[in-house]
């Protein structure tokens, strides 16, 4: 069973629908015991880092997610959920993340040419940087859907894919059993579903 962590951030309808479309048994939950008993954990997130990190901590679920990940349970963070896996974020200040992956979240505008639009929104190609179980059903160059204004930096050792948008932006990361996608697999058509399927099969 996959636990989709519900900590009061964003709409989890599409994510739950996409998991159900690939036949994965899914529960959307804010219950610590349910998360502990799940085989895998999916950490979603939209909105601002500060607010999401605060809600995740105040709900007590930050500790649960970290404990389970440290025990070796597969964890996948999506979009802001991926950014939360890092040590800190510089989104409108400086805020602590879960620290499961080394690195920091920084504004895209620091690294891309000024004439490119922000957010980085739309379909972009994945450039594989490392072989990963997450990509076992897809190919280098496949397109996925992004919406973000901040990106994961200082995390070279865990980057498994990038996307080119005036700079090589971190698109996906892996560190042991902890995975993250900056893009939205639940909005990336068959390619996105194939990524979720690979995670479910881990």
């Amino acid at each position, binding site marked *: 069973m996959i636990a989709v962590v519900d900590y009061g951030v964003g*709409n989890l309808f599409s994510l739950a629908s996409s998991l159900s*479309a690939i036949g994965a048994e899914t529960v959307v939950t804010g219950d610590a015991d349910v998360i502990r008993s799940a085989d895998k954990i999916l950490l979603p997130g939209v*909105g601002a880092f500060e607010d999401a990190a605060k809600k995740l901590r105040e709900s007590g679920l930050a500790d649960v997610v970290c404990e389970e990940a440290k025990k070796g349970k597969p964890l996948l963070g999506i979009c802001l959920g991926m950014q939360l896996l890092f040590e800190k974020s510089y989104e409108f200040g400086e805020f602590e993340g879960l620290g499961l992956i080394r690195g920091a979240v920084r504004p895209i505008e620091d690294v891309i040419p000024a004439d490119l639009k922000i*957010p980085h929104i*739309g*379909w*972009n190609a994945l450039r594989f940087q490392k072989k990963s179980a997450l990509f076992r059903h897809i190919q280098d160059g496949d397109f996925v*859907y992004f919406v973000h204004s901040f990106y994961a930096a200082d995390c070279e050792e865990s980057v498994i894919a990038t996307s080119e948008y005036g700079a090589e932006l971190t698109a996906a990361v892996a560190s042991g059993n902890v995975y993250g996608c900056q893009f939205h697999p639940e909005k990336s058509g068959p390619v996105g579903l194939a990524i979720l399927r690979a995670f479910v099969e881990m």
Partner: protein
Amino acid sequence: MITKRIIPCLDVKDGRVVKGVNFLGLADVSSPVKLAKFYSDGGADELVFYDITASAEGRALFTDILTEVARTIFIPLTVGGGINSVADFDRVLKCGADKVSVNSGAIRNPALITEAAKKYGSQCVVISADVKRVDGVFRVFAKGGRENTGMEAISWIRHCVDLGAGEVVLNSIDTDGVKKGFDLEMLDRVSSVVNVPVIASGGAGCMEDFTELFRTLPRVDAGLAASIFHFGEVDICDLKEKLARDGINVRRTAR
């Protein structure tokens, strides 16, 4: 690099797709769910649903249909039509929409844009503008293009982006339905004053029109059309192959 997006647009009334739909091999062409799947499987990068229902009961039906569509397709979904309040945003987002498009609602109450952007993020708020030349000036029209608001369009659209809109759908009333190409002059003016994605709407008649759009105006991010897709005059997979041959970066999918 980010790809140019191709977006079919569906008008839905009382839970059924209306106006000009003519597909081979689709028995129930007015089912929004079947059409959404047809387009999603056929390579569309995004879908736009406009609710042109007048009654509250129709609205409730649309909400049910939207939930079913969002459960079936896994590409971004934009919903517009009758969005007048944050409660309306809430209603369609809970059904699985990713973006909400406002038009008349924002003309009546521009603060709606800011309110919604603060609550859901700018990426979620799309300003849709129906624009027409009147005595050589671009004017904003309301109520589905029937009423001239008297507002100058370029400054209005820029104002909406300043208020928090994260994307612009520019529908040229002058070229809409004419099928002789997008309104490049109008699109050029708008895309040079905003720094958010601009979606061209109105006027696409053939595949070449999309090539011309993206070649002439590299700052335009997407092309939206309805009837040429609905009537099967342009197949999205064919269109993407042509655009790729013409050197335009598009997302190509397996047929």
